[in-house]
């Protein structure tokens, strides 16, 4: 085999392995990420329509009812693209279709607004799982007085933020001073959400 064939071949094999590892890691972290997002969304719904004791999905939106079953409002989602990000909102809408509140579900590329630097300890992370695969979880838990911690984290505890910095956003920035998301994007997202409820309700109101 000539070098011209050999090098691309080696590179190709390495790429395939890397892709497989990434796909696997995505697979094991995805359920955790989804679970967190669900919890966050449930919280946003509770805040968007505080009077609602129960909600019922009605296609594009949800109906919220109080303990007596009286309609207290609607919940609808909307999304729009801003200057460099996508914003997703949850709008609480009163029965008379006035807006009760606007909660932001997510905004991409935005350290600060809607950033998920979740600092709650997670029972099982993919590092734990990896450790488990290598049969070292029990050992790791014994070795550390804090069983929530992953295997490698302890080694990095002593480093300052400067040692581990993302080039663009400074690693662990908690908010940005001077930044604003475009209110146009917010408005578009909210209009979309309200329109979804209006459209769904209009035939019933007309009859």
């Amino acid at each position, binding site marked *: 085999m000539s070098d011209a064939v*050999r090098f691309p071949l*080696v590179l190709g094999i390495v790429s395939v392995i890397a892709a497989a590892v990434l796909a696997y890691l995505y697979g094991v972290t995805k359920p955790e990420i989804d679970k967190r997002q669900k*919890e966050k969304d449930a*919280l*946003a719904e*509770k*805040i968007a329509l505080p009077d609602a004791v129960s909600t019922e999905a009605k296609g594009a939106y949800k109906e919220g009812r109080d303990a007596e079953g009286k309609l207290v409002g609607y919940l609808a989602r909307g999304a729009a693209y*801003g*200057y*460099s*990000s996508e914003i997703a*909102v949850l709008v609480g809408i009163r029965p008379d279709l006035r807006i009760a*509140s*606007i*909660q*932001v579900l997510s905004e991409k590329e*935005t*350290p*600060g*607004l*809607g*950033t998920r*630097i*979740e*600092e*709650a*300890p*997670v029972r099982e992370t993919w*590092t734990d799982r990896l450790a488990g695969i290598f049969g070292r979880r029990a050992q790791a838990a014994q070795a550390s007085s804090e069983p929530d*911690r*992953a295997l*490698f*984290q302890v*080694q*990095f*505890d002593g*480093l300052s*933020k*400067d040692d*581990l*910095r*993302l*080039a*663009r*956003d*400074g*690693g662990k*920035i*908690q*908010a*940005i*001073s*001077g*930044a*604003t*998301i*475009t*209110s146009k994007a*917010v*408005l578009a997202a909210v209009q979309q959400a309200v329109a979804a409820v209006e459209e769904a309700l209009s035939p019933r109101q007309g009859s």
Partner: protein
Amino acid sequence: MRLEVLRRTPRRRRILAALFVLTLIAIAMWRRGCRDLPRRDHTFIAMGGIPITVSIWGRGEEEFAADVAAAIALVERLESLLSDYRPESEISRINRAAAGEEIPIGDDVTRILKLARRIHDETGGAFDAASGALFRLWKRAERVPEGPDLARIRAACGLTHFRIDEDRRTVVKDAADAALDLGGIAKGYMADRVLEILRARGVRRALVAIAGDIAGFGGDPPFTIGIRDPRGRPRDVIGTVPLAAGAISTSGAYERFIEIGGVRYGHIIDPRSGRPTAGPLSASILAPEGAIADALATAVFVLGPDEGLRAARAAGAEALVIAEGPEGGLRFLATEGFRFERSPGPGGR
């Protein structure tokens, strides 16, 4: 070169080592966030499109939901008092009132007007919460405002037209068309008030960001706040500053100009002259209170680096001014206590 050789070459080992280190760094970043108290955050929209993010550490889900609900209720109440879009707000009532009429005001408007007046006086009028008409005049003008037009508007502007009577809890103005516009102080004030109620509810560590006006308490370890790159996109950060307590606000041009007939006349109106001024690229203020940081950021932006830094120091605040430097570069001017740290990468030119 044969494959066997490739396998043994030190370069391959170096690459492997580099990959290993990169993996470790990735894992460390993944887990880094778990060192502090558990944090929860929630963003909602108020005031017709302004995002408010409340971050609270060390609260359970139920407590957090109640904290956020209290914050939303407070912001709604403050908006109903302070917004000049709401006809029944205290601010709208003041703006509609005749000269000499006594208008009753509550605690919040009293506090905010006192703070506004303090920053107005400390900055020689570079911050003026009663100069909205000047801004609108220039913003809407089809030709450059001059002579009587400008003079008439200028005469109605100025916080000095308002007199607060704290005992009677009233405000009186001496010109009917004098009007308040709290855009340069209300967001910072709201952040202060949200923190107040969170503290009263037993929260030990919290950060509130109302658009780019940020305030926090329980900053041990300090919060890391990014400063927006004044020439970048909204989320580009040019550097960071630690915030242990108090507030930070940034006022910037962000490519906005007052433009009349295709000619650019600067970024911001100087309330002292009634005319647009170029200003630096941005001004950031660290202050004990959000309202002060918010108002001072506007003032320092109007004043520019030299006068601005002096004014900030005199007001007991720390400031960072980012201005255009030679050859398209940037100049960073800061007071001693502003521990700005430049980010590497494209944002940190």
